[in-house]
């Protein structure tokens, strides 16, 4: 039985409460009266990154890394947001906050919170592998670590990105030989740019769906990407043949895509590690590529943080925290409304 043993935390602030708590609105710092990645509207919110489950609409005041500012502005409109540098410390009622690279997507941060010598870190979503697009993850020492564990199972072990990108490029080349269009589905923030950055531009042209084009345009001010061409009503089928199209998962099965026949489809996600996920009828090919940590990376990150207490949020929280307890850590789970892993799966499956 893997019942949820609540170990309870001993670390207390002056007011006899933990530095960070989970309430119905989000992750809350009572001493500073502010939230991190709140899922319901709050006054002041630190945002780890631009994915929709971590950066919700409706907060009065947003604070995030300055690379993330154009991203959430693009998604949420004209919000009140301040961008800061990595490592820049700001103090609220004695609590010191700073942001540190999380390596998940451009502008993604871990949040370090310190009060009277006690340090907590919330990882947000993160990966250890340098993807060549966003600022790579950096370890941050802390007493208590709040970590995601989307892929917190020993069954997840990512291959080096270089190998996966080689596979993607040769899949594209094969389709080109068969005079087919390659359509790859990728989340419009993160995965799309990661693939785009490493496509072999000598093989042909790279076309995009509107959602991808717009987000990439926003990010071009931060990172250099190969040229892309937006698919419009005037784009002809013959123009696309042999070339590659990057589209959001929601485009799968739409009339937009049916116009491109003959085509081969592919999906790039950590879930593609599972044969069951790969085999489902939705796509012709699955590439195992994730912006989250695999099993070993999670363990490495926890180890390098030096944390004795670990709180596991979204993903295989029960199993992962049970494992952490078995290796002597004080670990437990907390319920959040983050759903990064479901976003990827559901959108492809529709």
């Amino acid at each position, binding site marked *: 039985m893997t019942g949820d043993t609540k170990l309870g935390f001993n670390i207390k602030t002056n007011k006899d409460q933990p530095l960070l708590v989970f309430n119905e609105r989000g992750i809350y710092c009572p001493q500073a009266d502010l939230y991190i990645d709140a899922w319901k509207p709050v006054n002041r919110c630190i945002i780890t990154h631009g994915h929709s489950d971590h950066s919700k609409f409706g907060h009065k005041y947003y604070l995030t890394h300055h690379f993330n500012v154009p991203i959430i502005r693009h998604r949420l409109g004209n919000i009140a947001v301040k961008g800061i540098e990595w490592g820049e410390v700001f103090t609220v009622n004695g609590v010191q906050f700073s942001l540190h690279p999380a390596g998940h997507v451009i502008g993604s941060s871990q949040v370090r919170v310190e009060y009277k010598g006690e340090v907590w870190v919330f990882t947000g979503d993160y990966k250890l592998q340098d993807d060549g697009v966003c600022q790579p993850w950096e370890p941050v020492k802390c007493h208590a670590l709040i970590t995601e564990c989307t892929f917190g199972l*020993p069954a997840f072990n990512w291959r080096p990105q270089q190998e996966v990108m080689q596979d993607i490029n040769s899949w594209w080349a094969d389709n080109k030989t068969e005079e087919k269009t390659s359509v790859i589905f990728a989340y419009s923030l993160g995965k799309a740019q990661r693939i785009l950055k490493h496509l072999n531009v000598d093989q042909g042209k790279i076309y995009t769906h509107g959602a991808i084009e717009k987000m990439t345009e926003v990010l071009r001010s931060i990172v250099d990407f190969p040229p892309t061409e937006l698919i419009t009503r005037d784009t002809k089928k013959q123009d696309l043949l042999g070339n590659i199209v990057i589209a959001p998962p929601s485009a799968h099965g739409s009339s937009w895509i049916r116009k491109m026949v003959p085509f081969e489809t592919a999906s790039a996600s950590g879930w593609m590690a*599972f044969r069951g996920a790969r*085999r489902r009828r939705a796509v012709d090919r699955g590439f195992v590529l994730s912006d989250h940590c695999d099993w070993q990376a999670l363990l490495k990150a926890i180890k390098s943080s030096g944390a004795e207490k670990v709180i596991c949020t979204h993903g295989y929280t029960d*199993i992962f925290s049970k*494992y952490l307890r078995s290796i002597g850590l004080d670990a437990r789970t907390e319920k959040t409304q983050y759903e990064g892993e479901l976003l990827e799966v559901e959108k492809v499956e529709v």
Partner: protein
Amino acid sequence: MKAFAALIKQLDTTNKTTVKVRALAEYFRSASDTDKVWTIALLSHRRPSRPVNTTLLRAYAAELAQIDLWLFEDSYHIVGDLAETIALVVPQTAEKEKERSLTDYLNDMIWLKKEEDSVKKEYLQREWSILPYYERFVFTKLLTGGFRIGVSQKLMTRSLSMATEIEEDILAYKLMGNWKPQSISFQELVLDERSGDQDSKPYPFYLAYALEDELPALGTVDDWYAEHKWDGIRAQLIKRNGAIFIWTRGEELVTDRYPEFDRISTNIPDGTVFDGELLPMIDGKIGTFNDLQKRIGRRTVSKALLEKVPVILRAYDLLECEGDDLRADAFMERRIKLEAVVQRVDNPLIDISPLVEFEEWEDLEKVRAKARDMKSEGLMLKRKDAPYRIGRKKGDWWKWKLDPMCIDAVLTYAMRGHGRRSNLFTDYTFALWRENESGERELVTFAKAYSGLTDKEFRAVDKFIKSNTIERFGPVRSVVPELVFEIGFEAIAPSSRHKSGIATRFPRILRWRQDKKIEEANTLDDLKAMIIE
């Protein structure tokens, strides 16, 4: 192994039949003869028997992956496939020195079976650490069980036919029967034209499609025969050169499991092949599928079991008579010969599936409505002048099954799905009301079901489960009883192994009754009332 793993990967990554056939034909053109024979064997369920039990496999894999067994088990539950789990958690730590063939590995497995556990462990852990991911997966799959890669025997035969230019039908016949991959050559199995030594060989079964249109669309009543659709095991009973052979539709030779037929061997003329249904016949009445279940899978049958659940063959076709292949003849003519042979056998162990009399299509509707009283699943419609075809073909045979029985039940437990649905709770347990000793209504579990909802509904139910969990037991959660579903099933029988006292056959979710409150769900007594005595 590399080439075979690449083939499996190709077959596994496409849904397109043409691509599969092409890949397989290409493999059959390039692989060595022994590898070809083994590939045919594996794709027709002729795997060598398991050299290592799965308990040991799990323990060896967890040890090599340096994780606790519980963590391995939890991972297995989420991945959903043992070989895949092992391949995923075990790291490749070395390179293989030389490439070994599929045949080498299968010979290893035959050898390994007789070895001691320590040898097994050393062998497996070594192979796991030197094989790259996909080869590791395929290798482990060979140890654990069949590949579900959408390659039917028919598809394999078609590919082999493309590669060898031998007709598909001829190949299908050649590949049936009780050959052993370790002792037969490709020449003997596939290329040679043989006579004799084929006594046991069954014919490929002709399979019916479910009726698509209204009955009148079939044309004139006079062109058709109708029979009941019996709910047993489809089988061919063969008598050639003095010996009896029984084959099931799964192409399994099961003669030993039904020794009752030996007693009447002399009654059956040589050169006879019946097609029919093995049915449990208890005190002159057809038993339930649950009864038959007790006989299936028992290689050795005790005398007591033979008496408790005797089995008969209800014949409905004659494929061979006096050594002649009758399959090209019209069904009408085969039927006349069938009646004559059954009469000659003159033993209740082989009876004939009676024809249903009807003059108008409407007559059949009435018969079908009462099929359950006859212990049948519905009706079969067979064109009088049709030959006996190979495999599933439309047009001449139609099955017209009864609508499933159904009952409204309450969702009480949920478990995560496997594979692509491993994030969602999609395996459900359902309960019905009953009154306990103190006169209170309580819910009692009666069936598990997992198919039948749309992805959208699954997500909605999943969300409900996640926010209405009462308790977690490993992967299983008990859920606040609030949702009602209509559960359909094919048959029902009393069972002492079930908490509810009832076993249902093929339970599945028909629909989500969002209009019903749990108080309106059915009772166990409602379910019991459906049992036909």
